[in-house]
């Protein structure tokens, strides 16, 4: 095929491909997070990955929170963004979690919730509205994070 004709076909084709690549990718139906099933509970959604160093601090704290406030209506959901499940499993062996783990290897949920940094935690009130969000996990702010959860929990019978 003579070169000029090939260019006439290839150039528009490349341009088209380039155009297509800028469109948001059509994600396969993957991870879903249906928060409506948790209506009435305080939901703490944490986006994490095995390679995220601060997550080594956040997991023991989240486990502690789940145990402490689970009875009072706290549900922690940790959305894992590892592309390889083996990496997530290895992390969970070192930092066990009794709360729900949702896998999102394609980052569909992360994209939907507009995650700007790792880790990110979203806090939902029992009525379903988003009540808070923080990027990053800092040991020095643990009390602050805990207070935000407690504020949303229904007051206990002992008035706390």
């Amino acid at each position, binding site marked *: 095929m003579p070169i000029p004709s090939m260019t006439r076909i290839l*150039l528009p084709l490349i341009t088209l491909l380039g155009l297509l690549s*800028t469109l948001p990718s059509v994600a396969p139906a993957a991870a879903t997070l249906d928060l409506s099933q948790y209506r009435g509970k305080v939901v703490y959604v944490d986006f994490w990955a095995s390679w995220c160093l*601060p997550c080594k601090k956040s997991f023991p704290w989240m486990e502690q929170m789940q145990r402490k406030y689970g009875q009072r209506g706290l549900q922690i959901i940790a959305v894992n963004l590892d592309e390889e499940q083996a990496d997530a499993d290895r992390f969970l062996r070192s930092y066990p979690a009794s709360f729900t783990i949702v896998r999102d290897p394609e*980052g569909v949920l992360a994209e939907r919730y507009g*995650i700007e940094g*790792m880790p990110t935690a979203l806090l939902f009130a029992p009525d379903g509205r988003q009540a808070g969000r923080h*990027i*990053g996990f800092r040991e020095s702010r643990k009390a602050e994070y805990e207070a935000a959860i407690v504020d949303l929990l229904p007051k206990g019978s002992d008035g706390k």
Partner: protein
Amino acid sequence: MRRWTALGLMLIVVSSCSSLGVKPWQRGVLARPDMALAAESLDAAYDDHIYFSKEASSGGRGFAGGGCGCN
């Protein structure tokens, strides 16, 4: 016609370059210790010292950045 196609192609390339980077949750590989720019800092310091003593040039290497981008 070909000129416009070529221009369109360049514009697409340029516009995608301006938002260069990855999403915060796509940094798994970049978070690897062997992908850190500041890895092997002792090696680099030794090299700098040897080559500063034996050659006329010096300097260049610098800082970090990259990594997991956490917190």
